[in-house]
């Protein structure tokens, strides 16, 4: 039986318990890890467990029998009072979360050393009926450890977010820096190349042979530097996602013939001729013309510079369902086994030595791969029967929609 409040007041704490079973239940409640108190229909507190005694520093005999609002005058008219009333009047159960109700009851830990710390609380309010009477059970859970855990989590998550932002910033700065520097280098270099070109052509007066030779070397190297800078600019555009593609229908045969023509002179340096096998007239692929040419130029120039003198480079076009494969086949020395996995990386060259016979910086295939993939294609290479290498790209056929 639940004790009658006036009864308790008169006889004090020890008398709350009426029977041996109640005595046992009272002990159980006192051992609870939660704060428990019971309010009757007159809004009086009729049960106050040991946890509440400790946390509130209010003795049981001072609380039991008193009205809820007299024990907690600051809570008059607050949500806790409203939900206690609702539990008693309409038998509604309520939850008061710690996040939406900061420190509901004035409850404290007493730390060793005297400092008091407010207990973070989560509160439930439940209606109970017994022998025709309505009561309201208020339970308080100490969620301080959970609050502390989430505070740590919050700090960590914020730090992680900041670190990510910093990293993104740094990488943006890096690519902006690269692209600005490259632009700044290109302008003076272009004018150096122009001037050297004029001198080399002899319009400024005939050059002594030794001077002519030196000027030619300067011209070559300026040219190389310009190519390198353009490649670096491309890479920084690719990495920052700023390389623009104008996709559309492209007549494959026209583009192949143009690329071959553009590389003819280069091929002649290595005594290599390009040979284009039959392409069905009107074969149209879906691509960006300039970017596709850039890829083809690299494959054609690679094929020439890694071919022995006097042999051909074959260009084949094969249709595979909705895709078109363009193959560039050379009869050179092939790609060393241990180099195959690195060939598309930046600055990677099979012969990385300074005494290399052929020019280039090892950026061509890296850029080509990025371009082809941007156009939803694939780039790769095969080792054919006999000598050499086949580099191929697969790109989409243009479909009328």
């Amino acid at each position: 039986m639940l004790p009658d409040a006036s009864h308790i007041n008169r006889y004090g704490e020890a008398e709350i318990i009426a029977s041996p079973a109640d005595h046992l239940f009272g002990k159980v409640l006192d051992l609870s890890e939660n704060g428990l108190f019971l309010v009757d229909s007159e809004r009086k507190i009729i049960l106050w467990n040991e946890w509440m005694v400790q946390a509130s520093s209010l003795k049981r005999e001072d609380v039991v029998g008193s009205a809820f609002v007299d024990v907690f005058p600051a809570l008059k008219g607050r949500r806790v009072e409203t939900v206690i009333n609702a539990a008693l009047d309409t038998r509604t159960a309520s939850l008061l979360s710690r996040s939406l109700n900061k420190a509901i009851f004035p409850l404290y830990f007493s730390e060793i050393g005297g400092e008091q710390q407010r207990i973070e609380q989560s509160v439930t309010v439940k209606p109970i009926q017994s022998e025709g009477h309505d009561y309201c059970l208020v339970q308080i859970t100490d969620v301080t450890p959970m609050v502390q855990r989430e505070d740590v989590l919050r700090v960590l998550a914020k730090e992680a977010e900041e670190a990510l932002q910093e990293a993104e910033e740094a990488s943006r700065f890096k690519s902006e820096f690269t692209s600005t520097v490259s632009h700044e280098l290109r302008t003076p270099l272009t004018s150096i190349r122009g001037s050297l070109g004029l001198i080399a052509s002899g319009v400024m007066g005939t050059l002594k042979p030794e001077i002519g030779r030196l000027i030619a070397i300067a011209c070559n190297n300026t040219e190389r530097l310009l190519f390198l800078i353009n490649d670096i600019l491309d890479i920084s555009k690719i990495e920052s996602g700023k390389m623009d593609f104008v996709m559309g229908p492209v007549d494959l045969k026209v583009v192949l013939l143009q690329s071959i023509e553009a590389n003819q002179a280069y091929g002649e340096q290595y005594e290599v001729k390009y040979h284009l096998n039959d392409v069905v007239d009107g074969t149209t692929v879906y691509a960006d013309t300039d970017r596709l040419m850039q890829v083809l130029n690299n494959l054609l120039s690679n094929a020439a510079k890694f071919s022995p003198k006097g042999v051909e480079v074959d260009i084949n076009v094969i249709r595979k369902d909705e895709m078109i494969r363009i193959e560039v086949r050379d009869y050179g020395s092939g790609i060393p086994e241990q180099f195959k996995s690195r060939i598309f990386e930046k600055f990677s060259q099979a012969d990385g030595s300074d005494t290399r016979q052929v020019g280039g910086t090892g950026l061509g295939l890296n850029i080509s791969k990025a371009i082809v993939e941007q156009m939803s294609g694939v780039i790769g290479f095969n080792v054919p029967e006999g000598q050499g290498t086949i580099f191929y790209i697969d790109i989409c056929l243009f479909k009328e929609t």
Partner: protein
Amino acid sequence: MGMLEITDLQRDYITEVLNISMGSAAAVLSEMVDEEVSLSVPEVDFLQRSVAANKFDQANAARMSGVTQAMTGALTGDALLMFPEEKTLSIVRILLGDTVPVESLTEMEQEAMCEIGNIILNSVVSSVADLLKKEIVSSLPRFIKGTGNELFSVETGDEDDLVMFLKVDFGLESQSINGYVTLMLNVDSLHDFISQLDEQISAA
């Protein structure tokens, strides 16, 4: 029978009653978070359990999360408040302000959502109890997530049960977040409900 036909008059009356109680729930929430919160019920339907579950899965391919309370007394069953999962996240984070930037709700954020759901569901349940002039006791709220079908536990429920299906607009910081409240009604209590409704309409 997929849907219970009620008259426009009945529907208007329920909608009005629910909107009044939602208004007071919104006022409680506004005061708690010191921010303008609005709640309204634009639509009320009575559907068969399985029909309601399907309606859910079709309208929301994404996963839902929300709060449930068990009801006993004049109605036996579950009351549910549900939002698409990412909406639940934004509701809690807007209301709490200071948040942990992780992908799902933390324990304490779930507890806060339970309280929000508790306030809303209690107001719906109490206005239904008022209409029935009977007592409905509801349990404490519990946080749940899953698809519409899972949340409805169609397999375990009684096929004949009807679901009172409310659309809820949760207005927060000039956003309007759409969610649902559902109450399971057994057929008897529904008939009760309708006749009480008619009585009150004619009294009004």
